[in-house]
């Protein structure tokens, strides 16, 4: 089979330019409505639950998960499904424990909630550090992935791809703030869900709408193994550790948490997670089908020839079933996906710098609207440039571990402090600081000593820490240290404020 993949075709460029044109127009529209801090960070709290559900799903369905999971299923079969399931199961935790209190208690960042009754400056410094490090690792992984994927799909040089992505994302966030970022995210989510649905429809069309036929074809070609659990989960401890990172990390991702401030109230926040979980779950079921469809209709050999990791399985299948036009469409969708995800991350990182560090710590909470918006825009620009530089610096590096690390830090630095500050009266400033730093340093140190970095990247013969993901240690240690230090250091003021926090958390009185 001949493929147009790897070179810019007329259709892919046309679809891509159309997307860029529409999103820049939205940015222009949003810029006129983005003057205050609430508008810049939280889209003026004007997003509905349904829209936010799409935007949340958009934030979560990265190109890496779309192309990566489809490829994993195409090459490894059932194991790809196990991997996808892991990324969904954190959403109920967000729904049950975090979304509503976060919306009722905070303003723009999750540090708002952690600092609600604790000492502002140390807490904001520390929580923002956790947020920023999470965002940076996630961002590096996304940028490096973006560069290589765009190179594979359009044949653009890596650096050029990174610079295009970086400049567009800076434009969205800098001028259009959260309003533009949200609508870019919504459009991308609709395109991605729509494109995948069409692709699955075409697969089923090829198999006479008979799933069994699809499974029969892949098992005939690649053996029974492809529909059975393989080597992904062998060590129970390893699986549980990764499970903890994914499950609780979702509830600690700053760019996800920030979205709950864009809806008017806690009720919409709660509804938005339900929609998001539905969209993401549906998307993973589609991706699973796409992977098998690619194995059956494109063949593993060709998929691996184009990219060893299987990342081009979905685009190749699109071409096989819908020709060059559909390939062009899907490639543009993947590009859009990359853009939207990095824009969301940049905004979350910038808000940690401007809202928490600059206004909360340096200005001690005394900055007017104008100053804060200006600070937020400068932070956006700096973070955007940093993302471009890091993307280029890490070219060709193995950055796959960084997503796991970001989830581990989110689960063990951000989530425990957030949860305890909402639900535990005796939580203290010292307890929070120790908890966050424990989660953060343990995650980073243990991942360096783990097989993924110590052996695969630093080329040592044996890992010092046996597990690939450190969450099973760092998550529990963060809680244990947080509880222990809180019990050793009493904070009367914080305890006294717990009652009003509780009322606001459950009833929403005084929520912004």
């Amino acid at each position, binding site marked *: 089979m001949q493929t147009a993949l790897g070179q810019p075709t007329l259709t892919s460029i046309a679809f891509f330019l159309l997307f860029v044109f529409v999103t820049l127009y939205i940015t222009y529209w949003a810029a006129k409505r983005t003057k205050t801090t609430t508008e810049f960070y939280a889209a003026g709290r004007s997003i509905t639950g349904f829209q936010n559900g799409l935007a949340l799903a958009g934030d979560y369905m990265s190109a890496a998960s779309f192309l990566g999971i489809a490829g994993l299923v195409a090459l490894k079969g*059932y194991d790809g*499904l*196990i991997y*996808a*399931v*892991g990324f*969904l*199961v954190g*959403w*109920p*935790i967000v*729904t*049950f*424990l975090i979304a509503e209190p976060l919306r009722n208690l905070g303003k723009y960042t999750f540090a708002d909630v952690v600092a609600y009754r604790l000492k502002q400056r140390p807490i904001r410094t520390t929580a923002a550090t956790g947020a920023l490090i999470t965002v940076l690792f996630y961002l590096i992984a996304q940028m490096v992935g973006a560069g290589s994927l765009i190179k594979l799909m359009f044949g653009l040089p890596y650096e050029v791809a990174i610079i295009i992505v970086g400049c567009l994302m800076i434009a969205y966030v800098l001028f259009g703030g959260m309003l533009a970022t949200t609508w870019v995210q919504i459009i991308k989510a609709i395109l991605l869900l729509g494109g995948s649905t069409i692709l699955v429809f075409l697969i089923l069309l090829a198999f006479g709408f008979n*799933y*069994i036929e699809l*499974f*029969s074809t*892949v*098992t005939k070609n690649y053996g*029974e193994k492809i*529909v*059975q*659990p393989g080597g*992904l*989960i*062998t*060590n*129970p401890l390893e*699986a*549980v550790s990764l*499970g903890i990172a994914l*499950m609780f990390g979702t509830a600690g991702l700053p760019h996800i948490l920030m979205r709950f401030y864009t809806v008017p109230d806690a*009720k919409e926040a*709660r*509804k938005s*997670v*339900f929609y998001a*979980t*539905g969209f993401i*779950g549906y998307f*993973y*079921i589609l991706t*699973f089908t796409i992977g098998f469809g690619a194995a059956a209709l494109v063949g593993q050999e060709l998929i691996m020839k184009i990219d060893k990791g299987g990342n081009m399985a979905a685009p190749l299948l699109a071409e096989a079933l819908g020709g060059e036009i559909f390939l062009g469409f899907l490639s543009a969708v993947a590009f859009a996906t990359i853009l939207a995800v990095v824009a969301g991350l940049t905004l979350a990182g910038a808000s940690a710098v401007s809202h928490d560090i600059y206004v909360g710590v340096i200005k001690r909470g005394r900055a007017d609207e104008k100053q804060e918006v200006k600070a937020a825009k400068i932070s956006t620009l700096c973070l955007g440039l940093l993302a471009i530089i890091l993307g280029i610096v890490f070219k060709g590096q193995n950055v796959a571990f960084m997503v796991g690390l970001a989830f581990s830090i989110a689960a063990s630095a951000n989530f425990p402090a957030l949860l305890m500050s909402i639900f535990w009266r005796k939580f203290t400033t010292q307890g929070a600081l120790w908890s966050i730093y424990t989660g953060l340093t343990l995650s980073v140190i243990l991942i360096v000593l783990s097989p993924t970095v110590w052996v695969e990247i630093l080329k040592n013969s044996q890992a010092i820490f046996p597990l690939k993901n450190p969450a099973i240690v760092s998550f529990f240690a963060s809680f244990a240290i947080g509880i222990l230090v809180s019990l050793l250091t009493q904070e009367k003021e914080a305890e006294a404020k717990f*009652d*009003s926090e*509780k*009322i606001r958390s*459950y*009833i*929403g*009185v005084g929520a912004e």
Partner: protein
Amino acid sequence: MKDRILNSQEFRSLVRSKNAISLILTVAQLFIYFGFILLLAYNKEFLGQKIYGPVTIGIPVGIGVIILTWLLTGIYVAWSNKKYDQKLSEIREKLVGGE
């Protein structure tokens, strides 16, 4: 006003029921997911068994975990939209004074 709310029967029952639902559903979710991966770790053969043509047990189980995950959030949202919001508006009316 603060103490009146805190000591009211309504607020206490609101907090209690919400915490109970959140806790039960969180435990259910942990059970579903970690059950799934421990089953994978300890009994791959079970999930690899064929049930219908080429389809193995693992496929409906994996898809089932995705659907159950979504259903759990659905249960929570349905409960909140009905029960929680009703209690909430009662409390707001009675104690917070309209708003």
